């Protein structure tokens, strides 16, 4: 129900933002080099890298953090943060630990790839919306390859065989591409950190998800999402604890990490 109300506004926001200037990131004058795997000992590769010179300002700018995201809902967000924290310790973690006992890690990785593959259609559309035709076709090719020879997405044949890498685009990034700021921070119960722009994006993206094409029952979709989450938690057991226990105010640390992470995704094409 919520989705139906949200979707038109996503379209509206997008069209409004189309007229706003895109904010290209000042690129440093650098030379990208072919990635070179380095094992423990080898020191090769270093000589191929060049020292580059670029504008004085871009140096600091590139590293500087952006302004902290507005958080008018902080009291409520903190309540949901606590809720999610309890959800993790009381439900997700115990379930994931049991799951982890029975499911080998390789299979868990395959499951993660399977769910990741389902995001491809939305990524393809978002690349297109950002005018990135080539990246869009890569997403389409990835989806086709991984859904077939990748055994229904349980492997990443597109990457391993064809060298096709996902651009990891989503509607939140597309909106940002057309100038939308994050708006304000939102901590959703169950779903975790987000902001206004990315929440709208998330709803929009859900319309491009196979669950929606296949018109799955709501219960089935939720079940699949929970399973995906359990699998993911199993692969990352301990990370949440480590991060929150080494933060003084975990809420603030998560909020900032979310913002920095998303800004990075938006800037890195």
């Amino acid at each position, binding site marked *: 129900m919520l989705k139906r109300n949200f979707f038109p506004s996503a379209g509206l926001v997008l069209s409004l933002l189309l007229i706003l200037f895109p904010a290209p990131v000042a690129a*440093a004058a*650098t*030379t*990208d*080099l072919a*990635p070179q*795997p*380095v*094992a*423990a000992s080898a*020191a090769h*590769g*270093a000589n191929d*890298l*060049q*020292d*580059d010179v*670029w504008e*004085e300002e871009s140096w600091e700018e*590139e*590293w500087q*953090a952006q302004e902290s995201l507005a958080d008018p809902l902080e009291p409520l967000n903190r309540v949901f943060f606590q809720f*999610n924290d309890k959800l993790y310790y009381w439900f997700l973690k115990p379930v994931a630990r049991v799951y982890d006992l029975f499911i080998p890690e390789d299979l868990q990785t395959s499951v*993660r*790839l399977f769910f*990741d593959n389902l995001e491809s259609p939305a990524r393809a559309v978002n690349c297109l919306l950002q005018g990135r035709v080539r990246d869009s076709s890569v997403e389409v090719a990835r989806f086709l390859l991984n859904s077939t020879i990748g055994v229904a997405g349980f492997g990443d044949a597109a990457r391993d065989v064809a060298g096709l890498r996902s651009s*990891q685009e*989503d*509607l939140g990034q597309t909106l940002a591409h057309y100038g939308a700021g994050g708006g304000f921070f939102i901590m959703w119960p169950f*779903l*975790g950190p*987000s902001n206004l722009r990315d929440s709208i*994006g*998330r709803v929009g993206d859900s319309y491009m998800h196979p669950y929606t094409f296949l018109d799955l029952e709501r219960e089935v979709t939720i079940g699949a999402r929970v399973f*995906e*989450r359990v699998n*993911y938690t199993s692969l*990352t057991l*301990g*990370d*949440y*604890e*480590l*991060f929150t*226990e*080494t*933060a*003084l*105010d975990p809420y*603030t*640390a998560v909020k*900032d*990490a*979310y913002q*920095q*992470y998303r*800004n*990075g995704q938006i*800037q*890195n094409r």
Partner: protein
Amino acid sequence: MGKFLQGKILTVILGATVLSLVAGVGSLPAAGGGPLEQLQQSMDEVLGILQDEELKSPERKEERRKRVILVVNEMFDFREMARSSLGQSWNSLSPAEQEKFVGLFTSLVEERYIGKIDSYTDQKVVYTKELVKGDRAMIYTSIVDKDLDIPIVYRLQKENGRWLAVDLKIENVSLVVNYRRDFDVIMRKEKFAGLVEKISSQLEKTQTSN
């Protein structure tokens, strides 16, 4: 949008923890070595410790960790990181308070970034770009771990002829910036005394839970 962002972010920050520091860890630089060479050399040293079969036994766990930390301390300028994580407030501290804070900050960072050292398996490190300008440098790396490819950028400064890392970004999340925002909340409400108390109590918690 990524599926489970909270989890994703945490992976982002922590999934790579071992190698993040690993890739930035260092020892004495080769004479005349650039930032990349120094970084690589350091990383090799830590990888060597992590891959050492003899050190993998449970009873040598603590020794292994200590050896890694030793190398990390050689490579990172923790004092500079502590200073910049505190922002303006740093200048209002007495030298003794600054020293105390550097110690606490170092322990906190070690907990967060070396905490997952035992989960190191066979991740590979890839160098993608090196930027050098005067006494500053940025090294772009990436950790390849099964289905994941985690970008890590190191920011280095040259001090007394040696390149030292002063920050790192894992999937664009800067260690120093994240702590600055975190500390800022505490500093505003509880001042330096509150900050010290909070870090100390967090360290006690993590050290007992490990």
